[in-house]
């Protein structure tokens, strides 16, 4: 998968270097299907280590997007760990974000920085909880 229209945004980057983007800019992007149906907004960006090295540690690559259907602020992590409590607060946060989910990078068709939009090939969101 290779998002085809990842366009440069701030800050300006020399032509010889890859386009630089900011995580803060990516948060809040609309997430839509290739048919244009809205799935929500980017609430967080999930990172995973790759095989390459950056200095003394493995590179960190975008693995997918945490997608929420409302601007209810941070999920505080209560939605992403089955064992993370207190139970009552966890249940409340999960209810508030009951339509939140996850889209893996492999399902991403494009990231349009100018239009602040991520287009995905899937019609449904995956389970948000990370396994421990």
């Amino acid at each position, binding site marked *: *998968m*290779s*998002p*085809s229209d*990842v366009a440069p945004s*701030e*800050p300006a980057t020399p032509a010889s*270097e*890859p*386009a*630089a*983007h*900011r*995580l*803060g*800019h*990516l*948060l809040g992007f609309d997430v839509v299907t290739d048919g244009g149906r809205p799935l929500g907004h980017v*609430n*967080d*960006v*999930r*990172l*995973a*280590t*790759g095989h390459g090295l*950056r*200095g*003394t*540690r*493995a*590179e*960190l*690559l*975008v*693995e997918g997007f*945490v997608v929420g259907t409302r601007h209810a602020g*941070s*999920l*505080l*992590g209560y939605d*992403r*760990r089955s064992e993370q409590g207190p139970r009552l607060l966890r249940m409340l946060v999960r209810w508030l974000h009951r339509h939140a989910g996850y889209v893996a*990078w492999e399902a991403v068709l494009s*990231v349009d920085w100018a239009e602040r939009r991520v287009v995905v090939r899937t019609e449904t969101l995956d389970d948000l909880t*990370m*396994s*421990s």
Partner: protein
Amino acid sequence: MTENAAGPRYDAALRLLDRQIIDRDGRLVAKVDDVELAQREDGRLEVVALLTGPGALGPRLGGRLGRWTVAVWRRLHPAESPQPGRIPFGDVTGIDSAVHVGRRLADLDVDGFERWVDAHVVTRLPGAKHEPE
């Protein structure tokens, strides 16, 4: 952070933004105000740097407060075209409740704005040289 077969996984906003950066000697460097991503040749986005200072925080805040933050920072900053502090991700040695870097504070390209304000504004305020109690 969660470990899987391929290694640790992080939700970036939850685990990186606003975290304290600590240098190799245990000194507080700055907070992570934003994270710089770059698109690789295969299209994948990769974390390449941590950004610090009002020049990184302002755009993230957005709205009037964000614009005001950047405008004041640019106005007071001694450089003509100030840039946010930038720590290459290759300098990061560990991520837990804080972000640890393998270099010393003096060797890092972090925003000197706070030190400049301290030297040129705060120390000139009446009572600024008062000994701490």
